[in-house]
C-alpha cells in the first residue's frame, strides 16, 4: 500500500521499504542526520499509514471506558491521551492515542499494523448508542517534531502552538494535536488524504527536514517509548511494560482489568527495562539474547545505535528482581557477549 505522500517521498530522495504492508521511507538524507535534525531543529514524518477511527453517540464514553485502560470519562474535550487496548488476559492488543473532539465525539489513532485487528475487536463489542467508523483510508497524517516545531506551527496556522502537550485543535478539515513519538516538542497533523501533498509541501517550506522510519525508531527508543509488535505484545501486560500510569484501576471494569488486578496481587514477574551498552560494541538490535551471570534471561525487544548517546541501546523484558538501574547484563552479539547496564528511563534526556 502507498500513502498519499508516496510520490513526495520519492521526490525528496526517500529510500522506500516495506512496513506492515506499507511502502514507507526509511530515510532520506541519512538516519543520523535526520535524528539530529529532530533533536536540534525540526523534522517531519509521514505517519499516514496509521489508522483513524471515529467514535460517537450517547453511549460512546462508557463503551470506550470498557475497552481501553485509561480514563476516557476524565478526558477533557480538546485534549488527548495515551491508552491501551487489552485482551482478556491483560495482554496488549494495541496502544493508541484517544482524542476527545467533543463530549460525545472521539478520534482514535491506532498503529498501522493493527488497523484491521483493532477495528474487528471493537466492532464485535460495539455498545448500545455507539457509532464506530474506520476512516483510516480517508486521512493522511504528518508528525512535525523538534525544538523548532513551534515556529513551523505558527507559520502554518497563524497562531501560537499550545504550550501544553496533548492539546487537540480542529483546523479546517483536519486535526492538530501537540503530541509525538520523539521526546521533542511538536505536533501531529491529521488531514484529509486529498490535502496531504499540499500540507507536506508547506511543512517542508516552513523548514522541517523530511525524516524516515529509521530516525523515528532511534528517536523513540532513546525515549523508551514502546513500539507495539516489538516491545508490546499480547504476551505482556502494560504493568510489565511499565505503562501502569495509563491504566486506571478506579474504573469499574475494562477488558483485561481482572487479569491485571490478579497480576498486581501475585507480583509482576518481569519488566520491560531500558538497557545501555557499557562497553564499545556493535549496535544492539532486536532479538539479541540477554544474559545474567552466564544464564540467558531474555532477549532484546528493540535495539539500535543511539545517535544522541553514541552507543548501543535496547529494551528487554527481564525478571523483576533484576529490573533495576545499574544491574549489569551481557548482550550476545554474533556469538560474543558485551557488557551492558539496565538504565533509568528514558535513556536520553534533553539536558544530558
Amino acid at each position, binding site marked *: 500500500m502507498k500513502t498519499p505522500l508516496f510520490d513526495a517521498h520519492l521526490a525528496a530522495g526517500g529510500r522506500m521499504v516495506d512496513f506492515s504492508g506499507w511502502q514507507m521511507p526509511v530515510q532520506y538524507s541519512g538516519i543520523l542526520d535526520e535524528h539530529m535534525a529532530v533533536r536540534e531543529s525540526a523534522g517531519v514524518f509521514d505517519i499516514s499509514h496509521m489508522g483513524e477511527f471515529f467514535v460517537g453517540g450517547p453511549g460512546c464514553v462508557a463503551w470506550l471506558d470498557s475497552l481501553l485502560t485509561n480514563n476516557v470519562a476524565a478526558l477533557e474535550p480538546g485534549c488527548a491521551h495515551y491508552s491501551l487496548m487489552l485482551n482478556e488476559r491483560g495482554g496488549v492488543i494495541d496502544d493508541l492515542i484517544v482524542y476527545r473532539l467533543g463530549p460525545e465525539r472521539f478520534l482514535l489513532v491506532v498503529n498501522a499494523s493493527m488497523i484491521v485487528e483493532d477495528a474487528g475487536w471493537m466492532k464485535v463489542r460495539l455498545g448500545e448508542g455507539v457509532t464506530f467508523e474506520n476512516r483510516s483510508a480517508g486521512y493522511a497524517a504528518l508528525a512535525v517534531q523538534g525544538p523548532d516545531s513551534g515556529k513551523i506551527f505558527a507559520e502554518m496556522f497563524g497562531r501560537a502552538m499550545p504550550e501544553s502537550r496533548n492539546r487537540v485543535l480542529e483546523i479546517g478539515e483536519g486535526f492538530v494535536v501537540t503530541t509525538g513519538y520523539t521526546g521533542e516538542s511538536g505536533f501531529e497533523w491529521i488531514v484529509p488524504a486529498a490535502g496531504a501533498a499540499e500540507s507536506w509541501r508547506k511543512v517542508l517550506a516552513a523548514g522541517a527536514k523530511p525524516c524516515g522510519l529509521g530516525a523515528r525508531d532511534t528517536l523513540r527508543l532513546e525515549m523508551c517509548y514502546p513500539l507495539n509488535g516489538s516491545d508490546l505484545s499480547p504476551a505482556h501486560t502494560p504493568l510489565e511494560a511499565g505503562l501502569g500510569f495509563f491504566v486506571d484501576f478506579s474504573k469499574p471494569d475494562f477488558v483485561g482489568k481482572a487479569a491485571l488486578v490478579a497480576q498486581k496481587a501475585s507480583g509482576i514477574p518481569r519488566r520491560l527495562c531500558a538497557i545501555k551498552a557499557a562497553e564499545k560494541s*556493535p549496535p544492539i538490535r532486536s532479538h539479541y539474547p540477554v544474559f545474567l551471570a552466564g544464564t540467558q534471561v531474555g532477549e532484546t525487544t528493540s535495539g539500535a545505535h543511539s545517535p544522541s548517546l553514541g552507543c548501543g541501546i535496547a529494551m528487554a523484558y527481564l525478571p523483576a528482581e533484576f529490573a533495576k538501574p545499574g544491574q549489569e547484563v551481557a548482550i550476545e552479539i554474533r556469538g560474543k557477549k558485551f557488557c551492558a547496564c539496565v538504565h533509568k528511563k528514558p535513556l536520553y534526556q534533553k539536558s544530558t
Partner: protein
Amino acid sequence: MNVPENLRYAESHEWILVEGDTGTVGITEHAQAELTDIVFAEPPALGKLFKPGDVAAVVESVKAASDIYSPVSGEVIARNEKIEASPALLNTDPFGDGWIFKIRLANPAELEALKDAAAYRAQIGA
C-alpha cells in the same frame, strides 16, 4: 559515483589496491552509500588467513550489519584501527582513510578474477 581506475573490484563491493605483494582492501563508495551511516567497524586480526570470499570484517550501519569479504587469499598484515574509533571514515573516505585491512597476497593470479573499474561501473549502473 567515484570508481577509481587503479583498483580491482569484487562483485560484493570490496576494492583492492595492489602494491607489490600487498593488497589494501576496503569497500566502494557505492557500497557505503547503500549501507548508509556506518557506526561500527571491526577489521580482521593480524595474522588471519583468508581465501577469496571468506568473511574478513563486519561493518554495521544504523540499520543493518554487513559482512565484508576478502577478495583474495593471503595473510592479514595490517588492520586499520582508525575505523574502529571513527567508523564514519568508511562513509566519508571509502577509498582512502576508510581502508579496512592489508593482506599479503598468496596467489596474485586471483586478481584476474576480479573486475576492473569499467566492469564494476557496469555492475552498479554508474
